[in-house]
């Protein structure tokens, strides 16, 4: 059965950015766990979120749908979702599906943090 683990830490000049590291696979079986994690991040008062995908093995439409449906919750509070270190095979799918035009993606976490700090 698919396994997804989350680790998280605070970053940015004001420690107002939450970095969430996805470790494992997200599909229809466990996508609710991802949804609950993002809801917890919002509840803790963080609206600027960097999603570190360096340890993400697989994400299905169910996982993509969680980010699509919830991004407005972050944007409406002056934050957003920024994705970093997306593996090549997943980035290829993001491009083919059109998600790379919707989500902000970065090679390095520092680039995503810089954009948040500059208000982008």
């Amino acid at each position, binding site marked *: 059965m698919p396994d997804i683990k989350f680790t998280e830490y605070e970053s940015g000049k004001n420690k107002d950015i939450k970095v969430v590291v996805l470790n494992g696979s997200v*599909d229809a079986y466990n996508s609710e766990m991802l949804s609950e994690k993002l809801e917890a991040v919002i509840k803790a008062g963080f609206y600027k979120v960097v999603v570190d995908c360096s340890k993400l093995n*697989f994400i299905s*439409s169910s996982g993509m749908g969680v980010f699509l449906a919830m991004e407005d919750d972050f944007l409406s509070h002056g934050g957003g979702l920024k994705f970093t270190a997306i593996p090549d*095979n997943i980035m290829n*799918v993001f491009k083919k*599906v*059109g998600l790379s035009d919707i989500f902000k993606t970065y090679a390095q976490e520092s680039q995503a943090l810089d954009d948040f700090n500059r208000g982008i």
Partner: protein
Amino acid sequence: MEKKFPASLDCLEELRAFVRGFCAEQRLNDILTGELELAANEAATNIIEHAGLKSKDHFTLALEKEKKRLSLTFRDPGKPYDFGRVATVKGAKDIQKKRPRSGMGVYIIRQLVDAVIYNALPNRQNQLQLIKNL
């Protein structure tokens, strides 16, 4: 190669491993493997969630290479459907506008493979074939 899976979402990891194993045997690169893994995952998820199968039911996935093309063939004993009329998003702009939590599976399959062929077989089985040209 062919394998039988229970009609339950907790089989998806095993199904993807089956596809990855086939891709490794065929020496496909990570990009192609990722595309087939996701296309297969989406097709299986649709069968499990929408074919009306009971928990004791199973579906099969057969993987074949014929010359310069790969085929992924699903067979399930669920209710017949018209694959061409399954509700799904229409494209990237539709995704951007609607921000759907679900309903992207068929669209994603169509972006990742070259042909999708559905047949309602005489033995009350659905057959969905995904074709990928190499």
